[in-house]
């Protein structure tokens, strides 16, 4: 399973919505996720990828789209 697939699985679980936005589309602007879903997403990413995301990295813009989340996770795993 690719990193993107794992991220999409998390988003589907948190949002309870199987229809995810396109990779470059905002997860928030269209209402797919609300602001309170982001902490859940972060916790799930930490668990799924066994990484600790420091508070200083939690700029919501870094987690705005699937593509940006994938980019961030990739950098943390490298």
């Amino acid at each position, binding site marked *: 399973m690719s990193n993107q697939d794992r991220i999409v699985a998390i988003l589907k679980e948190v949002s309870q919505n199987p229809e995810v936005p396109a990779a470059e589309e905002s997860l928030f602007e269209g209402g797919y996720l609300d602001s*309170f879903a982001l*902490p859940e997403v*972060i916790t799930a990413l930490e668990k799924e990828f066994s990484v600790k995301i420091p508070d200083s990295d*939690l700029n919501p813009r870094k987690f705005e789209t699937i593509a940006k989340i994938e980019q961030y996770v990739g950098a943390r795993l490298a």
Partner: protein
Amino acid sequence: MTSIAAFGSWLPPRVVTNSELAARLECTPEWILEMSGIEERRYASVEEDVVAMAAGAAKDCLERARCGAADVRLLIVSSASAAQRFPGPAAAVAAQLGMGETPAIDVPVASAGSLFGLVLASQLSASCGPVLVVAAEKMSDAIALEPAHKATSILFGDGAGACLVREGSGLLRTVHWHLGSDGAFAADLRLPLAGPVEMNGRSVIMQASRKIPRAITEVLARAGVDARDVEAYIMHQANQNLMDCVAKAVGAGPERFYSNIRRYGNTSSASMLIAAAEWAGVATRHPGAPVCFAAFGAGFHWGALLAVAE
């Protein structure tokens, strides 16, 4: 042994419903309730300024503590919405209470202010005597500034809360505390000198939902207390969804988190003490039961304080 002897509060009589606010902000009352969990809030009149509200809460608290204003040895006033840059309201509040030359200090750290004040009081009362902590906010003035931002205008209300901390027994004995500040997020929630409240909501929620549970877990761990055994969590009343999020994160039932945000909105630093005053008036306290205070706000500043019912 340091204890909180009593709480007090003062709320403006004018009720502002979601219907009134929705008409002004071009949205619906239902949207306001859904976004914030708030149904109504209080707005202070022109005469009911921060000093007047603070004095009202202080008098309520001192009466409940059976303590005269002249017996208070230090006054701490939290407010980030007072009418002028300096002096802050503390000295004027002390004067209104007839406190003579009792030292009075201002703690303008916004929403976490009453928690910071409570922690300071718990550490200072042994050396200086009874410490009165008052938090008073007139957020209606802040959100009236143009341009109006719907997302923040719906959240705030006015009011004041207070607590008296002194040596000896009382309502709650203070046990452990944890405070934190991180100025890297200073721009994410602020009230500029000449403008309305500015808030990066996603950042605030993201940081609050991590930092508050961590602070609570820290103080509970130091006391060997399980989160499920805390009789009441009394938090800064920022947002019902945030309180539910914190409850889930610490592993406690949401019913343990005292909430009155539906009726008063977010009264910034006053909210935790207003909630505490209400809770003290209705709760059955069980001696030895843990009670946890927590707050998060602009700065960012945050923390938690664990107390035990006496």
